[in-house]
Every structure is written in C-alpha cells, then in structure tokens.
C-alpha cells in the first residue's frame, strides 16, 4: 500500500512538472484562444493524478502479485468503506471540473455571443466590434465586411487588437469555421447564423504560421480537405489599405 502511494506520488509530481514546464499546445492568437488553451492545461493538471493513480496500482499489482498458474487463490478483499470513499472522491473531482474549468470557462468563451436575439450582439456592436460575415459553400469560404463594403473576399483579414463579431453561415451543406491559431470553431449551418466574438492578439499570417488558416472542420464532400483560405492579422492601418484595395 505504501509502495503504491509512493509510486503514485512520484509519478504525479513528475507528470505535473512536465505538464507545467512543457508547452504541449500551439500559441493561441486570440483572446478566447487563451481561455481555451488554459482549459486544456487545467484539465491536464486534474487528469494527471487520476492517470498516475491507476497506473501506479496496475504496475505494482502486476509486479507484486503475479503467479505462474491457478494453483493458489488470492486473498479475498472486502470493504464497505473503500467504495464510499472512492465514490466521494471521484464525485468531488467530477463536480469540481464541471464548475471549473467547465461552466465558468463556458461562460467566458461564449461571452457577448451567448444571448440569442439582439442583446449580446448589440452590445458587441455598440462596443465597436468589427462585423465580419463568413459564408461556407462547397468548397471554399467567402468573407464579407458589410460596414466596409467589402464582399466575397477569399482571405480573412483582421486588424490586430480589434474586437471582431463573426456571423457564420452556409449556402449549401454543413461546414465548420475553424481557425486553429484562434482556437475557435463554430459550425456553418444553412439557414442559421451563428455568432462568435473574439479579438485577434498578434500580427501574423498564414505564410508565417500555418495554423492561421480558415479551414472547414465538418465533412462536406469531395474537396473538404481543400476547403482552406488564408488568415492574416494586420495593423489597423494595413487593414484600412486592404479594405481600400478590395473596394476597387
């Protein structure tokens, strides 16, 4: 029992140190992406002791209790208290992660887009968010900037530090808006307009970072894997120039 506890402790410390020191995720380039990356990291901190507990018990049991055949029987173990303790601990853990990072994180990543109707969107617009409409169709994306008068752009260009409100929809079948670097995904559904609000945090482009791409994440037919357009995050002045160029 003590050996298992010691093994568990060592593995857990090792695992937590690794998870803390080693960045196993890409750098998020949006404010919401930061929250999402944190959620994955926090869940990993919770997961490690669970993982190492079972592994420690398994390794110890296999090494310590192995036998060459069925000649002798093991020692029956019965306990009334252990299952109750187990239930209490696992339930406690489950309820904890439901609240944090679960529900609290959910509120954060859906903020200013979570109220149906006009409330949330209106507040985002009042706050000066840039409205961008993204439309999926087999097999490309069209990007519209209604307030700038830009239609049917074939790349997603956004000014850095400026809040963006996306309206995502589809013309034909299901698609899904996904920019891996922003860590944001929302389905494009015909007849439905989905909203996401976020702020790009760093200037970069698809050429520099292959995760800055708008890729379809919902199987949509033959050329699904090719349904990708580049994403570029630029300085506000560069954005103005790009808009002016598009209008011509």
């Amino acid at each position, binding site marked *: 029992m003590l050996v298992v506890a010691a093994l568990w402790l060592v593995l857990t410390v090792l695992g937590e140190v690794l998870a803390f020191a080693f960045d*196993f*995720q*890409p750098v998020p380039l949006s404010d919401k992406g930061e929250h*999402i*990356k*944190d*959620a*994955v990291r926090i*869940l990993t901190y*919770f997961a490690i002791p669970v*993982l190492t507990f*079972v*592994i420690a*018990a*398994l390794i110890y*049991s296999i090494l310590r*209790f*192995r036998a060459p*055949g069925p000649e002798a*029987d*093991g*020692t*029956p*173990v*019965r306990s009334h208290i*252990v*299952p109750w303790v187990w*239930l209490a601990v696992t*339930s406690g853990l*489950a309820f904890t*992660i*439901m609240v944090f*990072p*679960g*529900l609290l*994180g*959910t509120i954060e*990543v*859906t903020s200013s887009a979570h109220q*149906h109707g006009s409330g949330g969107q209106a507040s985002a617009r009042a706050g000066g968010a840039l409205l961008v409409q993204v439309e999926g169709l087999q097999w490309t994306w069209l990007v519209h900037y209604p307030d700038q008068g830009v239609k049917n752009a074939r790349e997603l260009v956004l000014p850095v530090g400026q809040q963006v409100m996306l309206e995502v929809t589809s013309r*034909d*079948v*299901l698609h*899904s808006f996904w920019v*891996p670097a922003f860590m*944001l*995904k929302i*389905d494009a*559904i*015909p*007849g439905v307009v*989905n*909203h*996401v609000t976020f702020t790009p945090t760093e200037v970069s482009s698809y050429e520099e970072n*292959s*995760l800055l791409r708008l890729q379809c*994440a919902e199987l949509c*037919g033959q050329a*699904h*894997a090719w349904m990708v357009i580049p994403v570029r995050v630029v300085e506000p002045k560069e954005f103005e120039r790009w808009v002016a160029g598009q209008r011509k």
Partner: protein
Amino acid sequence: MTTAEHAERIGLWQGFYYVRRGVLWGLIGFGLGVGLAALFRTAAGSSPWWLEHNFAVGYVLGLLGWLLGVGMWERWVKEWLGLPTQPNPHGWMRYFAFTTDHKVIGVQYLVTFVAVFLIAGLLAMLMRYHLMDSQGALFNGGVYNQVMSLHGILMIAVAVAVIIGGFGNFLVPLMIGARDMAFPRLNALTYWLIPPVAVLLLTAQAVGGWDTGWTAYPPLAVRNAAGQLFFNLAIITFGLSSILGGLNFLVTISFLRAPGMTWGRLPIFVWSIFSASIIALIFTQAFAAAMLMEAVDRLAGTNFFNPGDPLLYQHVFWFYSHPAVYIFILPGFGILLEVLTHFSRKPLFAYRWAVAGFLTIVAISGIVWAHHMFVTTSEVAFLGAFLVTTEAISIPTGLVFLSALGTIWMGRLWLTPPMLFALGALFNFLIGGITGIYLADVPSDIQLSDTYFVVAHFHYTIIGGEIFALLAAIYYWFPKITGRMYHQGLGKLHFWLTFLGFNLTFLPMFWAGLHGMNRRIAIYDPALEGVNVFASIAAFVMGAGFLIFVGNMVWSWVRGKVAEANPWRARTLEWQVPSPPPEENFPAPPVVVGEPYEYGVPGAGPHVVLAPSGGDCGKEV
C-alpha cells in the same frame, strides 16, 4: 460422434444449400420488387426506372426472399401455415443456415464480425498509408472520403454486434443455466439480417458510395450519390437486428435464469449484456428513425432535413449514437471484470457497485448526446447542461475501475493472453476516458472537436477498450467454443504487438489534433507529416499482430491440441459443461447454490450443482 460423421459426408455444394437458396429467393424477390416499382412508376405517368425507387422496393422484397430461403421457411413460417417445421441441420452445415441453437448463432456472429473487423482494419491500413504523405499518397479526395466512411461504418457495426451477438449469444444461456435464448427463432433472424447489410454497404461502392462518414449528416447526405440510400437501408436493417437482439437478451436474462441464479449471483458479464441490451432496445429506434427520415427525404420528396432542419437530424442521430458507445463498452467492461476476477483468483471486488455503475451509465447515457454538438451553437444553457451530464457519467464509469483495481489487488495474477488483454483494455480505457473529459469540457472542445484528438479518443475507447476486451474474451473462451487450445506464446506476442502498436499509433494523434489536424481529411498541414508517418508505421505493427492472431486461431481451431474441459479452473457455469457444449447445454437443469467468484473464500461451496441427484430439485424446475 455423429457430428463428425456428418461433417465428413456433407459436400461443399450440399453444405451451402441454404445460403444458395437464400441468394436465389432473394434475387427473385429483388426482381419482383424492381418490377413492381417500375409498374407503379409507369402507372403514375413517369419513366419506369429510377435507381433509388426501384432499388428500395427491390431491397425490401429481396430481404424477405433471402430470409425465407436461408431457412426461415422450414423453421418458422411453415408453422404459421399449419405445415410441419423441420429441425436444425447438423454438422458444419448448421453454421450456414437459419439455425436456432444460440451457440451456433454466437459463432456465426463472432466469425462474421471478426472477418468484418479485419476488412475494416485493412481499409485503416490503406488510410494510414495514404496519410504518410501530407498531400495524400494513394487516393483523391472523393475516394478517401469513401474509404474512410466505409471503414467507419464497418467498425461501428463490429463494435455494436461482435460482443453482444458473439459472446452474448454463446455465453448468456450457458452462464445463467438456460437451455437456449427465450426466442430462438428471433435470435436466428437477428443474425441473418446481417449479411444483407454487408452486401448493401459493399454494393453501395458501385453506385458512387457515400462520403458522409458513418454519421451521414444532411444536407450532404440527402444530396450525394445513390450509395447513400444503400447506406440508409443497411442501417435500418442493422438497427432492426439490434433492437430484436436487445429484446431477446432482456427477456432471456429476466425469465430463464436457473433455479438459485438470483440477480445478485449473475456473472458480471451477464449484467453487462443486460445493461447494453436496455440501450439497444430503447435507443436504436431513434437511429433507425433518423435513417428512415433521411431515406424518405430522398425517395418521397419530404423535407425533414433538406433543407428542413439539419440540426434536428444531429439531435435524433446522437440520441442513439451516444448511448450506442455504451452498447460497445459495457460488454467490454463485463468481459474485463470477468477475466480479471478469474485470473486474479479472487472474488470480484465491489460487485454490486460495478452493477450499479453499469445501470447508472445506462440511465445517464440518454441525456448526454448533445456534447457531439458543442460547436453548433453558442447557446450557453445548452452547452452548460450537456457539459454537466457528460462529465457526470465519469462517476459510474469510475466504479468499474474501482471494481477492477480492487479485484487485482492482493490477487494471484496469472498473466495468460486473456489476462494481458484485459489489463491492456483497462489501461487503454483509462486514457480514452480521461481524454473524454477534454471533449466534454466546452472550452477545450471548441478547439478539439472534429480533430484527431477526437479520433484518438474514440479509438482508445473502442479499439483500446472494447476490442481489447473482445480479444481477451476470444483468448479466454476459445477452448470453450472450439474444445481446443491455441498457442499461448503466439497469443502473448499478439498482445505485445497490438498493445504497443496501438498506443504508438493513437497517442501521437492526440498531439496532431492539438496542433491543428482535423479529422476526415485527405490532405493536411505538411508540418504534421512526421507525426503521421510515425503513427502509420505503428499502425502497420499493430496490423502485423493481427496476422499472427488469425494464423494462431485458424490453425488451433483445426489442428490445435484438445483443451481440458476447464483449463482456467474457473468457477462459473459455462466451464462446468463439456467443451464445446452439447446442443442441449445441460443434461438436466442446473441448480445454482453459491456465488460465482468465491475464489479463496474459506468455506465457500461451488457455484452450481449439475444434474442434481435429488428428485426435489428436478421438480422445482
């Protein structure tokens, strides 16, 4: 042995009599249906031929013809007409006919679905080869989607039916001390509905296949090639088989337990089949309904989903398809605990807690479906509710781990091939379960849904959990089913190749998913080529392990040395009868007098008394 004599006398042509006749009657029915549809279309003033209409009607009549021809006629329908029915055929011929013996049906299921598993595995090897090049090494986009879709649905079919249909049928009546299933003919029907499903899925490839994965999301599924209709008809048929099978198990386990086999003495494997059957009976109907609505959209111009409401389809579809994953894994848990207790030579720890865990999983499974739809909306009430229910299901699942770890603790672990696979399944499912939490958590799922993280997660639960448990079961009950023993060393080699190959294939996929590789794509970011090449090579190692498995099993079944009646010294009922068990299972109804797993318990009596000598017990039955 009369069986052996028969086996020698039955020629190939004669042996396949029922299958031949089934195909013939099926073709006649199909032709009739095609003709009737053409007639109706002509009467309605349109051209007589439209592939989907003619085929749909042809399929329904063809299915009937097939079932009657393969033996339902002699062993079922004749009785309705007041004619005498005929008994089951003998020898190896009985495996190729509509037969009511649950053990024959179990073997039919098991062999069929292991074969399907190997075919779908071969498709996986092709996909892994294709993905060794980030621009795709083998297929164009359309063909890749088709191959991926076929791999998906074949493996799902295996996962649904291989353990319940195979080991459930073979073992449940033996383990509870029954003569057969409650509805033996219904049981035969559930199996013989399966070959048409396979034929449909394969012929679909000839009419354009379908490229919507196994999930068949509309509107795409309503718009693409005619292969989609074949898919829908196949799934409806398969669903019917599942529903009837679930019903049969529930009735059998509820009413045909031997005297003394109380619910509290039921082997844990039987409990797991019972739990999975509840899900199969209740939820499969939603899946079949979704497929039917999609088919009617195509055939009869309705507008459920085109454009209708594509999200409605996802709700109905996942309302079954999430509980379905518990149809996969619950029997896997049952096998895992069964094998762990016999090979630890200890009573199953926290038996009642494990049963409570199974039943709680069944209860919660119906209200978690929408976690597959976290990126369809930003509606926070929707997201929050399903996050909570989904994470709650980890609590009853934890009880299975409690039971498993408590059972091996202080045991005497005999590391045979079945034990290795059971321990491997426990480890793999641990990773599958923990990574499931990341997908149940809304914020992390926004990034991870529809990526290789999901691919890795569900392969860890289905292959790593259920299929490892299946392999444990095959190695454990092989001597029971065949009466012969396999080569233990090759079994262990198979384990190590599969275990290492499996983990090295799918662990890197978590990484690929975290770094922006989405699922179901024929080409991907070249930055991830290294990870993919690594995963592919590991997959080939895993594939090689299965070649050893097939060789070992086929050779041992034909030529292996004769096994002892109870080579594992197990206490449960199925090991107390000869191997393979006689057709009638027990000479006289057995009487259950004790707990099934009392290894090492001082003063514990046997689990069961066979052929009771006292007349009283006989009368009780």
